[in-house]
């Protein structure tokens, strides 16, 4: 049903368009060159802004009207609006008859991918898979345990640098560095988490952000330790029992490695969510005080979430170092944390399948839409806002387990 837009709404949208034209005037229209002392006036931009905001405001209004009607219809049918709103994908996942063949198809495709496509495509896919695992790791912290961590990239950096430095100074190989990187990152998670976890949600967010920046700034400035902004190069790729590999073979090998790690991650995260610990996390996310009253050790439970999330970031950090064979502090900015956070938020906090989709969409889309790649961060920002307003549960919401009281007779 198309909601009718009244004349009043049109007028309102027109006013909004005018407002945005005014708002964006200095930055969108005027462009000065202070050295050659010239001014260029880009009036067409103003037109685009006005048109764009007009259309968007109409669409938002239409959405709001539609939502009202749906809520009205649901109320008329004596239904709570949320109960029927399980997405199609969740419905498929609930039926083994549908999802077994789908799973076989997806895993077959995943296994054949490097043989079907070029090394370049495989390379992109490895990056995407790395972000999937990063997203799943952050999902433990943000989505399941409800601790907003804005410095997640610090643990990623710890992993990458521990491989780079251990290799540089002691000649350690990939396989030895992988667990060390993960454990070091987890250790950092505990060391940071211990003092800050008693803070309230938004303070925690800022402290983790500050911590992430401190790590990056130290890596940038402590040149004797980390070689500063120029970074560390010539990090070896992962070995396979001493077999010499060409670049494209090494990429295929890394691809399968990532698939393996992803499967392990999904398995572990999935099992964790149903465990005693996972239920404690969910409960902590909902109400801390009630949790403590029920005898859940708040600090310990949160610390484990933090350490586990950091562990995965450390693992991926090591793999990142091995993949690019080069690390420098510029790879670990706040924007990286923001990208990983948007993966979790877009996919659906607390939902594994959602995070997988979120990562694939956010990482692959800009890769294939090269023309749009410079608008990528702009889109990230807009997605974060839009998701919070229109669909706070994400693309594929995590399903809450519902226990119904089975009343005996009437």
């Amino acid at each position, binding site marked *: 049903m198309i909601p009718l837009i009244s004349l009043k709404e049109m007028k309102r949208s027109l006013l909004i368009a005018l*407002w*945005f034209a*005014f*708002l*964006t005037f*200095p*930055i*969108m229209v*005027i*462009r*000065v060159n*202070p*050295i050659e*002392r*010239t*001014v260029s006036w880009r009036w067409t*931009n103003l037109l685009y802004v006005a048109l764009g905001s007009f259309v968007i405001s109409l669409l938002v209004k239409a959405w709001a009207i539609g939502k009202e009607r749906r809520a009205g219809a649901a109320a008329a049918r004596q239904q709570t609006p949320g109960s029927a709103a399980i997405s199609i994908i969740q419905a498929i996942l609930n039926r083994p008859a549908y999802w077994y063949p789908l799973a076989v198809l997806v895993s077959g495709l995943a296994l054949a991918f490097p043989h079907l496509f070029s090394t370049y495509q495989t390379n992109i896919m490895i990056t995407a898979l790395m972000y999937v695992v990063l997203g799943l790791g952050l999902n433990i912290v943000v989505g399941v345990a*409800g601790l*907003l961590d*804005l410095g997640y990239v610090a643990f990623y950096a710890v992993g990458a640098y521990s491989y780079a430095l251990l290799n540089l100074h002691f000649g350690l190989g990939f396989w030895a560095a992988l667990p060390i990187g993960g454990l070091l990152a987890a250790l950092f998670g505990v060391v940071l988490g211990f*003092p*800050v976890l008693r*803070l*309230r*949600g*938004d*303070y925690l*967010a*800022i*402290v983790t*952000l*500050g*911590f992430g*920046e*401190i790590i990056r*700034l*130290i890596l940038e*400035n402590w040149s004797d330790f980390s070689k500063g902004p120029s970074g560390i190069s010539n990090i070896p790729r992962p070995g396979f029992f001493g077999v010499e590999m060409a670049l494209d073979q090494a990429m295929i090998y890394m691809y399968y490695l990532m698939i393996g790690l992803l499967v392990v991650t999904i398995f572990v995260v999935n099992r964790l969510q149903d465990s005693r610990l996972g239920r404690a996390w969910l409960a902590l996310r909902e109400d801390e*005080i009630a949790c403590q009253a029920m005898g859940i050790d708040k600090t310990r439970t949160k610390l484990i979430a933090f350490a586990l999330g950091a562990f995965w970031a450390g693992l991926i950090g090591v793999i990142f170092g091995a993949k690019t064979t080069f690390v420098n502090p510029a790879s670990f900015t*706040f*924007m990286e944390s*923001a990208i990983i*956070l*948007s993966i979790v*938020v877009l996919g659906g906090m607390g939902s594994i399948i959602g995070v997988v989709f979120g990562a694939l969409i956010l990482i692959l889309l800009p890769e294939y839409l090269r023309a749009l790649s*410079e*608008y990528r*961060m*702009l889109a*990230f*920002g*807009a*997605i*974060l*806002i*839009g998701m*919070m*307003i229109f669909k*706070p549960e994400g693309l594929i919401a995590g399903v809450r387990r519902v226990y119904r009281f089975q009343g005996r007779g009437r």
Partner: protein
Amino acid sequence: MDYFIELFLSGLTRGSIYALIALGYTMVYGIIGLINFAHGEIYMIGAFTSFIVATVLSIYGFPLLAIVIVAGVAAAIWSSAYGYTVEKIAYKPLRRAPRLAPLISAIGMSIFLQNYVLLAQTSDFLPFPELIPEFAFMEPVAHIIGSSDLVILVATTVVMLALTLLIKFTKIGKAMRATAQDKTMALLVGINVDRVISATFIIGSALAAIGGLLIASHIGQINFAIGFLAGIKAFTAAVLGGIGSIPGAVLGSLILGLTESFATGYVSSDYEDVFAFSLLVLILIFKPSGLLGKAETKKV
């Protein structure tokens, strides 16, 4: 001794600019309990607007005084407009949502605004026109304090006084204090809370814009990313003083400015930002309510 005084004064200059930004954080937090993460970006937009206006006017050959006034007014107007719009788009629909939702939306807004300026303008550092001349009467003390430092100190003091008067004695100031104390009660006695929140964002943004103009002409260059660091530091200052408290924000800013100034002067300038962040982490761990803030007790 001269070196000490020089560092002290430059610390005060730094601190008073942080204060202009920190006030916006603390006022918004006091009223709706939200960390307005996009506030640093509002400051950046203020600096950019004043840069654009000042450069255009100087190309067309206007006198310096006119440029300063017009650029300042334009920066304040457009920053306020952005602050108002950001609140309406990103925070107002989420007023009843769980705590994390507006924070994530604020981060989104911050990323969006940064990249909007990056795409619409440029990623390069741009030279900011020199708006504050070297005064002749400052000649004898020029080795200790520059003219722009003096202007910044004076301008900040004037702005702070005006803000204090506004909050203490005007109707909207009274409404703001009432809303900060108890939003529901303020609604009950007939205060238009939505309008008060909008006013808070507008005032905070205008202050940030003035800060943007002052610091940009002091440092002499700007780019699209300056808001992030300045925002975080001002936030640190606000937390240090006790977030929600206006005198606290000023005190915290001055302490942060002095700390940074002495640390860079006597230790090393490489770790300037590390000092600020470490200060933030330490305060939040040991005294989350800040120097002048009230400890929040949660009742069940």
